[in-house]
């Protein structure tokens, strides 16, 4: 029976190279390219033998190493003498990578929130009055999608079935609806724009319409810093101008 071993020791070719350089205790600015290439290739063989998937990135580095090695063997053809060391091709990225590894290590040694230090927990048992002027965060697409998923889940228990027949709702129409609601209220909750929707495709069209309105900048979406709090939509237009805005939608 096949035995698959999965080791995540070397993330990538640069990790492997650094490991070899360290193991051989060589100077990064004077890499013995022949030794390192030989050992690098032996490692790839070993990884294949161990059934580890050798990603293409490893092979690219292998060919780079062999190429450098062959360049080093050729006599310096340049009449002017001072030719660039072919090894720079790997020295430079290696140094950059070492630099990043070092600061990554430094970052991990800081007093990390949720590991070493803790703030007070979010007090979410009371709902503060939403205030338009108050501190609010622009929210990310992921938060919007999460909220949308919750709406869908609420609307139907059980598996989600998507059947698209002919188009019964248009984004333009839904966008106008959202705009007209916002025209009356100036501000509303994310969930409210879906209050009339009945079917999944309809929810989706409404959601797309909202994204489009945010995209063209007539609606702003906010969520207070707490991730479970309500998402609020705020009109970002003068109340009189909505008719034209509706027409401007390029849909």
């Amino acid at each position, binding site marked *: 029976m096949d035995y698959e071993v999965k080791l995540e020791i070397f993330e990538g070719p640069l990790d492997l190279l650094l490991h070899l350089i360290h193991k051989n205790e*060589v100077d990064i600015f004077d890499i013995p390219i022949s030794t390192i290439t030989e050992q690098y290739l032996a490692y790839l063989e070993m990884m294949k033998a161990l059934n580890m998937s050798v990603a293409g990135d490893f092979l690219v580095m292998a060919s780079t190493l062999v190429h450098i090695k062959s360049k080093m063997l050729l006599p310096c053809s340049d009449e002017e003498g001072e030719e660039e060391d072919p090894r720079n091709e790997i020295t430079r990225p290696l140094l950059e990578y070492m630099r990043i590894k*070092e600061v990554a290590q430094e970052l991990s040694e800081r007093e990390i929130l*949720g590991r070493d230090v803790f703030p007070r927990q979010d007090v979410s048992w009371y709902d503060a009055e939403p205030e338009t002027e108050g501190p609010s965060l622009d929210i990310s697409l992921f938060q919007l999608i999460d909220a949308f998923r919750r709406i869908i889940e609420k609307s139907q228990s059980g598996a989600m079935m998507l059947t698209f027949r002919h188009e019964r709702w248009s984004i333009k129409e839904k966008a106008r609806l959202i705009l007209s609601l916002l025209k009356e209220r100036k501000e509303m909750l994310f969930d409210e724009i879906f209050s009339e929707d009945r079917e999944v495709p309809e929810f989706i069209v409404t959601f797309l319409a909202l994204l489009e309105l945010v995209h063209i900048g007539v609606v702003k979406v906010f969520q207070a810093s707490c991730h479970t709090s309500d998402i609020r939509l705020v009109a970002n237009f003068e109340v009189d101008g909505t008719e034209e805005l509706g027409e401007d939608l390029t849909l």
Partner: protein
Amino acid sequence: MVPIMEKPLELIIEALLFASSKPLSVQEIHRCLPDVPAPDIRAALTGLQTTYDAMERSICLKEVAEGYQIRTRSAYAPYVLRMLRSSPSRLSRAALETLAIIAYKQPIIRQEIEQFRGVDAGGILRTLLEKDLIRIMGRKTIPGRPLIYGTTKKFLEVFDLKDLESLPKLKELKDFGSGDEAAVHLPEEDGQVERFKENETRSGPEEQRLPFPKDREGPTA
């Protein structure tokens, strides 16, 4: 309106900081106390910090993400974690390196990020986005219109940073040079082994290095 200055300024600010679930900036405090000039607020915050340090309590006042927040001291982490019934949040080494690349090189596109580590970054970028440590800043106006990545305010909060300027300094490339200790002793080595021990309790240190065929013969040139 409550006559605001009936109480000592430091204590008023302490109350605000205590009641807030996120770091409060000087401007935010100033908005609550419009009569108090910003320099006075700053002085009171420094005063509070000193007081907390002098008291040697388990909490302290930290300046993070361009604001101030009351936090527990790291020595009490094990107890707090027990109360929260959670294990400390961790990032993999690869995720941490990717995050470091973005923090130092932002704004940066995926292709540039991948050049640094020499491996695909798609999965890690997704994780970092989900953890709200990085954000999409826009699209670069080059063919393919790739997404541009940068770090978030949350990143500063999580890594105890005042602002991006207070990131630890990058070492000069030449400092890794020959004759230098760094040439033979790679800076990441110690931490790397240590972290392996923490994360993967099942694999002992001897498993971390593949048996290399030339090991016993010594390097051949």
